[in-house]
């Protein structure tokens, strides 16, 4: 595989973590424009742990997930009492606060003659763990997709479980779910923390793939895209956000002949798609139909 294809596939994998994070909140009935903040928290935390404190990436990624979950809880505690667009606006504001905090973060140390660490708006250079460990791009791609496959498998198991049914119920009708004894706020806090951890894992991998991060990597544009991936791909299955990312990056990469105008073309396609299919390509109805076809096929074989 050539370097360009490896790069594109790695990017699809990395953004998919963010898209899955937004998807998890969407099926819990919450629209968040702020998941990029936890992606950023994960990137900065893991970057600092490996580049400054010399932790191995697996441990640093776990630390980043804990940081992402904690940051998400900090945002979720005051904002989850809000509903609909008010919650969406609050998450957007919180994400901007995180981005400004990244701009104010200066923590550099001399590592082998180079200043390494966050340097405010000038970014954070020298996150070189994968180079120091001699990990090839194709190996890193395999790592990203293995972790993504594990995350999707987790979603599939979740959605087949009682917990998954509760999650959908909370998303569709929280009052009804509360009437049968679901502690809505506590449940949603758990979802928010899990979504934060997932986004942070993606951020940790992104920082190490890129070797450099800066605050504006985590601004509103990334948040809007992550939400769009979940909405384009569909809310019926965890494969929906992945389809959304693949379509986004695929369309962007295949419309390079439009040069600078390809973002406009992409925006138009998204608008048309959402007008025709408001719950995305793989919405609940399509997923249910596909499930029926498979179960009928299975029954016929028996």
């Amino acid at each position: 595989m050539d370097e360009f294809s490896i790069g594109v596939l790695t990017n699809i994998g990395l953004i998919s973590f963010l898209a899955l994070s937004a998807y998890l909140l969407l099926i819990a009935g919450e629209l968040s424009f702020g998941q990029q903040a936890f992606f950023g928290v994960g990137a900065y935390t893991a970057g600092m742990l490996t580049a400054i404190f010399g932790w191995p990436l697996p441990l640093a990624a776990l630390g980043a997930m804990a940081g992402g979950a904690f940051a998400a809880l900090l945002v979720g505690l005051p904002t989850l009492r809000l509903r609909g667009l008010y919650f969406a606006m609050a998450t957007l504001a919180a994400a901007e606060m995180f981005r400004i905090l990244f701009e104010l973060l200066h923590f550099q140390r001399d590592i082998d003659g180079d200043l390494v660490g966050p340097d405010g708006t000038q970014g954070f250079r020298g996150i070189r763990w994968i180079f120091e460990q001699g990990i090839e791009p194709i190996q890193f791609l395999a790592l990203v997709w293995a972790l993504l496959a594990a995350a999707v498998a987790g979603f599939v198991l979740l959605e087949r479980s009682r917990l998954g049914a509760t999650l959908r119920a909370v998303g569709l009708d929280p009052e009804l779910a509360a009437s049968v004894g679901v502690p809505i706020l506590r449940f949603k806090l758990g979802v928010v923390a899990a979504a934060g951890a997932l986004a942070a894992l993606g951020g940790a991998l992104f920082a190490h793939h890129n070797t450099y991060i800066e605050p504006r990597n985590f601004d509103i544009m990334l948040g809007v895209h992550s939400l769009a991936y979940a909405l384009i791909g569909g809310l019926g299955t965890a494969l929906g956000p992945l389809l959304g990312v693949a379509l986004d990056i695929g369309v962007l990469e295949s419309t390079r002949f439009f040069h600078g105008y390809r973002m406009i073309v992409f925006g138009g396609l998204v608008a048309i798609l959402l007008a025709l299919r408001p719950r995305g390509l793989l919405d609940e109805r399509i997923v249910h139909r596909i499930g029926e076809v498979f179960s009928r096929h299975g029954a016929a074989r028996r």
Partner: protein
Amino acid sequence: MIRFIVFALLAAVALPAAAERPKGTLECKPSGTDFVYACTIRLTQGGKPLQGVKITLGADMPAMPMAHNIEPVVAKPTSQPGVYEAKLDLEMLGLWVVKLRLSGAVRDQLILRYEFDQQGARPATAGARDSMPHGSGMPRGGAMQHGAPMPQGK
């Protein structure tokens, strides 16, 4: 034994110098085609020109990492040691993070943060904007070489 200890100490002192990271600078000027820049890359390691390295250049707009980027291009070595050339087709003006992925004799990735405008490229400052209006386009011919000091990529 003493000889071994002296050798080990000397090796410990010498190794960091041998492992010194490569450094790179970038100098870009408009090529005459809209948003296409002719760039010269200078690579050094330990103060000496770094040769025999394959450089793949990529560029990302920081505000949309992973999605708003350019197709990577391989830089060609010139007759001067440690000097390479490449064309960057950036799609729009503004702040770009140029990545030099080194392979071959050295494996590393250097990051250079530059603001591209009608005159060429200059090191990005803290308040640099992500993009600039397209309308004015790029100057045709008469490309100006930018004289600003180039930061060392790390």
